[in-house]
């Protein structure tokens, strides 16, 4: 099945003319038609345009770039010219929003010939950790379809795990690439804030959102990262920093690298089989020559509460644009303009988005701004400093990606706080703006995938990839596939 290839494998076959871009694209399309009914990972199909693009690429016949002719899925928050993009929200779905421009990331991938085959499921406006708040219904985990895929990049993660595509684009605001990557047994990285351009990606929390990929291997990830990174004049928060060739970080010796294990991430809350898988992974790093030591990130317990002040505040601001004027849901015969805003937003938004808008509005409102928002901004500084102090002593920090594997769909339904705590190990880095990767590191007693998180300092993607690749090559977890 051609769709089960990695980017590197597919590229080699395309270059050698063993397969065509059209065959590769068709294989992904066939796979989606066969299995997506069970998964609900794909919410908009872009098959005709994809095949048209593939045929054009085949007729030119040049496969110099690793991503030329490679089909991929896109989380439903990236604007793509002519393709419905709804953030899996009824506020944009009821009158399908069709962008008339490409996000910078999409433009960059189009330029090298990658082929977008469809839009992937996400929590509504990426607000969630399970892909259960999508207006199209939850995305199911390919390893056990009674369980969640994780979120918010559930569709991208499930799509990659199920070989519906060769790679996928997601976003990570509070762990939304890493957590579903861990729960679906694939590789996913949150890059340094400012490494990639957010232009054309529907914003959730503007000082936290990052663009990233989910892939079948660290090599694939390094390829995509190289294409999507770089300063963008259309996104003034992108850093003025050169984009290295990330593939050069692979295959390197990690002897003598200092690995820190934060004691606050190895608590009773971590399921025993998760802790065991991660400890085994750490031993493997030691066998490869890494020097492991215990470190402390003392403000860890305040990361999730801090995140859930600042992010809802930014969400409340970013959701203000969904007012039925320039795009989106509309209602007839409102009493007046304010009534129009009330009605379109009430009908369009789901409960989780409403919750976050309300918490954010409250925390920013007169009388509460200092106690909540400003105070949380200061706690954010302390959490950043924890990491800065740690990286003065170690090269990377390693932890479980999540405290437990994917849960049964619906289990967190009446407990928003329980849902927020899924982010416990992946939220702190978002407050500091630093990069982190999740790679497969084993399976739980229920047979569900587990992820190992490797965290690096600001702009430290090369260091992370070096360690992640060494670990991946010493194990076989990344090669395991679900049976569908």
């Amino acid at each position, binding site marked *: 099945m051609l769709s089960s290839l990695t980017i590197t494998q597919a590229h080699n076959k395309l270059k050698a003319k063993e397969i065509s871009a059209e065959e590769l694209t068709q294989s992904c399309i066939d796979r989606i038609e066969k299995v997506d009914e069970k998964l609900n990972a794909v919410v908009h199909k872009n098959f005709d345009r994809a095949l048209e693009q593939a045929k054009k690429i085949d007729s030119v016949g040049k496969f110099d770039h690793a991503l030329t002719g490679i089909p991929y899925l896109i989380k439903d928050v990236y604007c793509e010219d002519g393709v419905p993009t709804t953030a899996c929200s009824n506020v944009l779905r009821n*009158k399908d*929003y*069709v*962008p*008339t*421009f490409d996000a910078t990331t999409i433009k960059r991938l189009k330029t090298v010939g990658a082929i977008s085959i469809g839009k992937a499921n996400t929590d509504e406006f990426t607000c969630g950790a399970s892909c259960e708040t999508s207006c199209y219904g939850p995305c199911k985990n390919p390893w056990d379809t009674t369980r969640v895929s994780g979120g918010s990049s559930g569709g991208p993660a499930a799509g990659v795990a199920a070989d519906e595509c060769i790679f996928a684009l997601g976003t990570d605001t509070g762990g939304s690439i890493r957590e579903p990557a861990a729960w679906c047994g694939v590789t996913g990285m949150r890059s340094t804030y*400012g490494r990639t351009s957010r232009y054309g990606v529907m914003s959730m929390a503007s*000082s936290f959102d990052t663009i990233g990929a989910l892939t079948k291997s660290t090599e694939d990830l390094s390829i995509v990262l190289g294409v999507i990174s770089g300063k963008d004049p259309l996104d*003034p*928060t992108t*850093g003025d920093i050169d984009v290295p060739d990330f593939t050069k970080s692979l295959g390197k010796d990690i002897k003598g690298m200092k690995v820190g294990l934060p004691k606050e991430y190895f608590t009773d809350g971590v399921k025993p089989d998760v802790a065991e898988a991660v400890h085994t992974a750490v031993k493997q790093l030691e066998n490869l020559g890494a020097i492991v030591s215990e470190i402390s990130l003392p*403000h860890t*317990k*305040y990361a999730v*509460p*801090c995140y*859930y*002040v600042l992010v809802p505040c930014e969400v409340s601001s970013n959701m203000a644009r969904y*007012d*039925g*004027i*320039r*795009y*989106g*849901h509309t209602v007839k015969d409102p*009493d*007046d*303009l*304010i*009534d*129009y*805003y*009330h009605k379109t*937003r*009430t009908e369009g*938004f789901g409960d989780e988005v*409403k*919750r976050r*808008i*309300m*918490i954010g*509005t*409250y925390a920013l*409102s007169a009388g509460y701004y200092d106690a*909540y928002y*400003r*105070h*949380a*901004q*200061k*706690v*954010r*500084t*302390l959490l*950043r400093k924890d990491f800065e102090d740690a990286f003065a002593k170690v090269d990377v920090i390693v932890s479980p990606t999540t405290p437990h594997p994917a849960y049964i769909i619906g289990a967190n339904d009446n407990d*928003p*706080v329980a849902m*927020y705590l899924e982010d416990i190990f992946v939220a702190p880095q978002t407050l500091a*703006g630093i990069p982190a990767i999740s790679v497969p590191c084993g399976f739980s007693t229920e047979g569900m995938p587990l992820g190992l998180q490797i965290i690096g300092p*600001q702009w430290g993607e090369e260091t992370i990839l070096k360690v992640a690749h060494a670990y991946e090559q010493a194990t076989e977890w990344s090669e395991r596939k679900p049976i569908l």
Partner: protein
Amino acid sequence: MATLSDDDVRHIAKLCRLNLSDAEVKKFCKELTQILGFIDQLKEVDTSNTEVTAQVTGLTNQFREDEIKTDGPDPKNLLENSPLPIIDNQIQTPSAHG
């Protein structure tokens, strides 16, 4: 611990431009109180000598030359996305005065 009343929730909803039914007011009151209770842990942290972090890039204002760029999206196409009537390249909104 912060507890919200039903009236607090109605006021917040108004600021958010959201309508809530009576049942939703009760539901969200419970959930928001729970979330605020969780957030209250932050009170334990002494931030008296700490600066705020507004953004993590370390960048300051990014400017460009004041030149007209014509390679962006076409305004006519953007207007087509609107669900409301378009008159003379303007979106006709419901009246602010009812």
